[in-house]
């Protein structure tokens, strides 16, 4: 079965999560993109979801490994090698 020429809102919505993660084929990405360009409601949903994902990623703390742990691992690996 070939690809449709354009997507309905329902079809675009079904693909929204995969589209957000760029996990669709190039053709499917293009179809969703084209739909978002002509549908204000779906585009607004997409922008919102995308903003939440980016916001969560930005606010999650980047934690550096504690120096004590780094030293312990290094010592254990040296023991392994001997």
């Amino acid at each position, binding site marked *: 079965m070939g690809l449709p020429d354009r997507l309905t809102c329902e079809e675009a919505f079904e693909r929204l999560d995969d589209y957000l993660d760029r996990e669709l084929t190039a053709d499917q990405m293009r179809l969703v993109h084209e739909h978002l360009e002509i549908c204000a409601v779906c585009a607004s949903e997409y922008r919102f979801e995308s*903003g939440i994902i980016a916001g969560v990623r930005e606010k999650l703390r980047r934690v550096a490994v*504690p120096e004590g742990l780094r030293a312990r691992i290094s010592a254990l*690996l040296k023991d392994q090698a001997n």
Partner: protein
Amino acid sequence: MLEDRSVIDSAATLSAPGAAGVPQAPFEALLELVLDGAFAVALRYTRNRTDAEDLVQEAALLACRGFHTFTPGSNFRAWFHRILTNCFYSKYRKERRQGAELDLEETSELYLYEETAALGLHSQTRDPAAQVMDKLTGELIEEAIGSLSDDYRVVATLYFLEEFSYQEIAEVVGVPVGTVRSRLHRARHMLQKALWVIAKDRGIVSEMIGITDQGE
């Protein structure tokens, strides 16, 4: 030092043992590239600093012993996270959720979008997602992720923190890509509900609605 993942992946791939024309990198040098990320992931898996340290240490030892099974030229970061994740599931997993007991089972898609639209936020601002995120602290987001059950928390952590693709998460967790897709989508919806419920409890939702976009 915290580095960009693509830099880590290319460094780990280029210096993988046996890669054409490149001398074999010692295990410890590859481990160093992924250690900060692994600890951050372990903290979210275990939700406990002591367990996270033990988990990373154990995974590092297992990885060192099994380094001969690492495929030259493949993704060391994903390989190491697979060991870390296996180790978590076999030894550190605790069935009970932590933090607030939230009912996340009945969660609709677009949960936050619908809740914020119902409260009129979308007519107040051009960027409702930014308005929401502006009010949600890192601590609240950590709590929301911590409220997810193990399987959902694991894929959400790998997705949000390490920014792995579905295929990479499938390899790390050892489940089919289709399972990752459905688990991750559901985890995101549940996370949105958890964020909203916790924000409501803290009185943050009313703050969101009371503030309008100054740029309008």
